[in-house]
Structure formats: C-alpha cells, structure tokens
C-alpha cells in the first residue's frame, strides 16, 4: 500500500492538473530559461537575443499597435528603453497579433512606428506561445547567465495604465533595481489587464 500511494497520488495529481492547467497557464515562470528567437524587425532585418553580445539582459515586451492598453503604455515602454538600454537591458518589443484578425497589426502598420529598439513581428506566434504571453502589453525581464537568458520578472509596467502621473508602484522599475543589483526581484510577477493576443483562427 505504501508503495502504491505515491503512484496513485501522482495519477490523481496528473488527472487534476489536466483539468486545472489550461493552455494560458503554460509558458515561462520566473527562473525559467527563455528561448532565443529569430524574428523580423520593422527594418527588414532578423533579430535574435544572441545578437547583442554586450546585453546583460533584455526587457521583452509583447505589445501591438491596436490595443488601447498598449497605446496607453507606449510612451512608458519607450522610456524604459531610454532608462535601461544604457544600463545593459534594452527593450525588445514583439507584436504577436495575427494581422488577419487585427489588420491594424500588419507588418506595414508596424512599420509606421519609429522606435529606438527592435519592434519584431512574431508571425508564427510561436514565441508568444513559448513565453506564455496572453495579452498586450506583457513584459518579461530576462537576465543573461552565460549564454542563457533567465526570466526574472513577468507582468505589468506599473499600477496605473490610464494615467502615468498617478502611478504609485513602478513594478518593473522596482524589479529592475533589484535584478541589476544581482538580487531576485521581491515582486517578480504581477497581473495586469490587457487585450487578448489575437491568435490565428484555427484552420
């Protein structure tokens, strides 16, 4: 009986997890190694995390042209790059939306943006799925460890999407201060409202 119990518990846990775990909750947790990618930037060039040898890490933002929350945060994403690129953590923005569902997120529409950081099209949506991104905007702070990039923070930029002047807690900046000091972020995961990623319609 003693030997059977752990097995039956495992079976039960597996059975339970198949009900509880949904596709949305897959993807990275803090501490996971992030996969590199090769995605097309709006200048036509392919971009990978490995390209920038001097980067200590990245602030990867899944964002888009069309979501009101992404628009509300656009200036703050630009400001994050201004603040942290010089400190070794540039922003990399990735648009995961299917232009078939959201025409305003087409490659041509993306090219109207002039950012100082890459704005990449995740055409296959594989990277958004690998990261477990569900909405725009959604942030992942990656920290270099050797040749790997480890997820160190997932979530929101701050606690007030509507009005940057009313922000009380700058979640990602607080996390960055700790991460850059070599410490794990005290708050390493936050939740925020955003627009559902516009997944391709299943054929």
């Amino acid at each position: 009986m003693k030997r059977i119990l752990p097995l039956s518990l495992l079976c039960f846990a597996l059975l339970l997890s198949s009900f509880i775990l949904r596709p949305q909750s897959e993807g990275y947790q803090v501490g996971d190694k992030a996969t590199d990618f090769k995605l097309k930037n709006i200048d036509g060039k392919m971009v990978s995390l490995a390209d920038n040898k001097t980067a200590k890490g990245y602030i990867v933002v899944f964002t888009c042209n069309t979501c009101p929350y992404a628009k509300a945060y656009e200036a703050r994403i630009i400001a994050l790059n201004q603040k942290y690129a010089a400190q070794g953590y540039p922003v990399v923005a990735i648009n995961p939306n299917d232009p078939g569902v959201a025409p305003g997120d087409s490659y041509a529409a993306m090219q109207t943006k002039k950012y100082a950081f890459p704005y990449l099209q995740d055409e296959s949506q594989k990277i958004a799925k690998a990261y477990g991104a569900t909405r725009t905007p959604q942030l992942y702070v990656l920290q270099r460890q050797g040749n790997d990039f480890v997820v160190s923070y997932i979530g929101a930029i701050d606690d007030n999407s509507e009005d940057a002047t009313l922000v009380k807690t700058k979640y990602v900046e607080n996390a960055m201060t700790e991460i850059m000091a070599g410490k794990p972020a005290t708050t390493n995961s936050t939740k925020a409202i955003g627009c559902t990623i516009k997944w391709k319609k299943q054929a």
Partner: protein
Amino acid sequence: MLSFKYLLLGIGLSATLPSFGQQVAVIKFPELQKRLTRQTDTTYVVNFWATWCGPCVKELPNFEQVGSANANKKVKVLLVSLDYASQLDKKVKPFVKARGLKSEVVLLNEPDPNSWLGQVDAQWTGSIPFTLIINNKTKQRATFEQELSKAELTAALRKFL
C-alpha cells in the same frame, strides 16, 4: 394600503426589469468580492469586459441571450466593465444604452489590476474577455480566459443547472 402594495410591487418589478436606461454602478473590488462570495443558490455568470475590447463587445449578445433564456431560473448575469471610471459618461453609459443591455452592468473602478485580479481567479493572467460562472451553494466554479460563443456559454452554464 392596497395602493401601497401596488407601489411595492411596482418597485419590485422595476428592480427586476432594469431594461429602461439602467444605471451603471461604479464599484470597488470589496463590493464585487462581496457579491461573488454571497452564499446563495443563484448561479452567477460574471463577464469582465470593456467597451474598447473587440472580442468582449462581440460576445456580449451571447450573455444577454443566455440571461434572458434563463430568466425563469436562478441565474444572474453580471457584466463587469473594466473601462476607466473616467469613461463612465463618455463611453460606458452611452454603450449600455445604445445596446439596450438588460443584464446588470457595473464598472469596477480599481486602477491597479495586480491588487485584485488574483482574488477573482488565481489562473487569470489579465486578458479580457474573462468569464467566471459560480454557484456558492454547490461550490461549482468555471472560468474562461477567452471569448465564448453562445454554444460554449450555454454548455458551460448547463453544468450548473
């Protein structure tokens, strides 16, 4: 005395039929939580949406239809708008009026989703539409972080009835 009775009846009726230009109450999270944890045998279908959210607006009629189709059962549809409170008069009220929404609409005025999202559902990452179907008497609960078709919503609700 008789007229008083009719008056009460009238008030009762108008409370259950908020069809003519319903008010959109602005609430804070503790108020919503109180309603979500109320010990009642009524099944609540709670849909988190916003006027700016395309898939949310698209699926709203499904909630309206499910609400009216189950009007004789203990089912209550609650539409929780996550629009900014500053948009109440500009966007939300005109939208509710234009669509003639019959289900109760409230606007949740909480600027920091991180403070409350996890208390609605630990798995909810924050994208909308998000739907919670809950019955506190039978302790049944289902959540959907996705757009629901009328068939999907009806099937999900059927398990509660």
